[in-house]
């Protein structure tokens, strides 16, 4: 993919002090990021094949709400959806006749609801794809998958990276040697090759994609943390801490790790963009989350297969991926600037 070395993210600094322009950019990036996360979290409330609230055979049901709650990791699994809505054969659209509040986009992302390749209309705001699925609904649920993959994969990568980097940087010696070799050998594998080779064995699925991306993309973070540890290990304040009796791991966690957190967060922001691109690439190949699932990469692939007849299908997923990745880059860059004020090249004069 375009995962060009997450450890040294885009250098994007100039000597300018034009703050207003930059803050406008950053503010909109933050707004878009929040927007995307909200969409991801509440996707079934925005676009779903079942209503938010409805009355069915005298009782009130909240099928879309319970689907939203279901998506919360770990605890979400405990929530049981109410009975008739749980069955795939149950069609809320025809069965319900009484009161029902539908999501703004009342179509499921996988629902074959209309004719194929409809253009945009008031019912289907972005039209339908080659199999008659609502594009807007797929975009919304695709955002959910992209955000999930980006966030969870980077949390995993951050955890592994900080762990390996801390062990290597703190213990030094043999541990450092082992850690460095481990990082080195992981960096030798082109991410896409390794990920595909693992995906072959473990098969499709969001959790698989997250796991594999997370376990391959941690090297940059580990290198950063290790470098941070090595550079601050020799600093005076560590000796000072040692002199008043602080012990090894206490120093590592209390004094050294905080210094490494900032660069790690920056790397994670840039890594998130890479993870989203990787996932989209995998889905484009049909080897990622699953060919039926609504993903931006998969939608791009559908568009590519019909590039001669319906090139317009490309627009929505292209724009979404671009905006999402750009957003991560801008936020990462801004984070780095705020962490490191020495970024400006004013020229040092004596």
């Amino acid at each position, binding site marked *: 993919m375009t995962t060009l070395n997450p450890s040294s993210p885009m250098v994007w*600094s100039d000597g300018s002090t034009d703050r207003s322009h930059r803050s406008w950019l950053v503010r909109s990036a933050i707004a878009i990021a929040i927007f995307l996360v909200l969409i991801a979290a509440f996707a079934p409330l925005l676009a779903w094949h079942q209503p938010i609230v409805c009355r069915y055979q005298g009782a009130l049901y909240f099928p879309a709400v319970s689907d939203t709650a279901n998506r919360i990791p770990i605890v979400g699994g405990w929530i049981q959806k109410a009975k008739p809505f749980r069955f795939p054969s149950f069609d809320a659209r025809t069965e319900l006749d009484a009161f029902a509040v539908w999501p703004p986009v009342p179509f499921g992302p996988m629902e074959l609801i209309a004719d194929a390749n409809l253009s945009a209309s008031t019912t289907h705001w972005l039209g339908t794809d080659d199999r008659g699925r609502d594009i807007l609904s797929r975009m919304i649920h695709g955002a959910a998958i992209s955000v999930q993959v980006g966030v969870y994969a980077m949390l995993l990568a951050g955890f592994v990276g900080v762990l390996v980097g801390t062990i290597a940087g703190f213990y030094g010696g043999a541990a450092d040697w082992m850690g460095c070799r481990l990082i080195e050998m992981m*960096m030798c*594998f082109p991410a896409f090759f390794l990920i595909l*080779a693992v995906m072959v064995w473990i098969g499709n699925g969001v959790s698989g994609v997250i796991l594999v991306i997370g376990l391959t993309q941690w090297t940059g973070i580990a290198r950063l943390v290790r470098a941070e540890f090595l550079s601050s290990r020799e600093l005076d304040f560590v000796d000072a801490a040692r002199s008043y009796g602080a012990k090894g791991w206490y120093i590592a966690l209390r004094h050294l790790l905080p210094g490494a957190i900032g660069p790690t967060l920056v790397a994670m922001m840039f890594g998130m963009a890479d993870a989203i*691109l990787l996932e989209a*690439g995998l889905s484009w190949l049909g080897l990622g989350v699953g060919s039926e699932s609504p993903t931006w990469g998969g939608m791009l692939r559908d568009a590519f297969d019909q*590039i001669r007849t319906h090139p317009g299908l*490309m627009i929505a997923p292209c724009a979404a991926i671009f905006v999402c990745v750009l957003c991560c880059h801008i936020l990462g860059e801004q984070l780095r600037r705020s962490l490191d004020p020495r970024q400006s090249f004013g020229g040092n004069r004596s």
Partner: protein
Amino acid sequence: MTIPTFVGIVLITFLLIHLSPGSPASGTAGGFGDGGISSVDHDRLRTHFELDAPLLSRFGRWLTRVIRFDFGRSFADGRPVSQRILERLYPTLLVTLVTIMIGLCIVIPIASYAALHAGKHFDRIILGACVGFYAIPPYIVGMVLILILGVRFEWLPFSGLTSEGYSEMRLWQKFVDIIQHSVLIGCCFLYPLVAYLVPFVRATMLSVLNEDFVRAAFARGLTKRQVVFRHVLPNTLGPLLTVMGLIVPAVLGGSVVLEVMFAWPGMGRLLYESIHDRDYPVIMGMTVLSAVIVLGVTLVVDLLHAWSDPRVRYA
């Protein structure tokens, strides 16, 4: 340093095989595709990777296999894996190496100009464009290029390495044909490289320009051109080389989607095809080989870096 890393690569791929269905570690679960892995595949895997042998001897066998570059025979067509990979190696190397060369020729002048005029309009426009382009994945650009230049205007071919009737062409026609076919895919490899390297080289140059020896060189009466060519550029070379080494895996990884998109008969597409055919020996061979290529490139980059910077040489 290279040998332990090499052994590590072998070990990681070995563990990957260990994950495979049919190995004692994973039982019968897993497998890619709709129906999981069939029992036929199961048995073939078992015999091919000798999953029943003791662990250590199995690792030894795998190591010798990697060193001898012998991964057995492909499940799909029965030919040796190494042969299948090697015939796919050259289109990928062709497009990536040429792209990197062209990329350097573009990057260095642009980045130098931007660094020497930091903060001016050209510099800001270039930087903004780089950030923007870097955020567009190559497969999107590839699709747009195919749509506009390939489908709408039919200027350039976008599928495969050669046209039909390639074998009857004269030599220069063959040459032109290959060039024509590589333009679009080459562009898709090229622009993220440029968009990544320009800001990097620019920042490196800016930090070199702030070094004392540059000011000293000016004070000794050298012209701007002399300072840039004799002192600034040679000092930018080291970091640039290092980053080039780090970029290679990304370029190779990016080749999968692009090669599938452009029907380019390279390594990435072979990997894609093997995954669809469940041709596990080829997949494992490709994974090892790609890592070994990157390792080799890293080694070459280290040597070049030592050649270009005496401080590294004696360190």
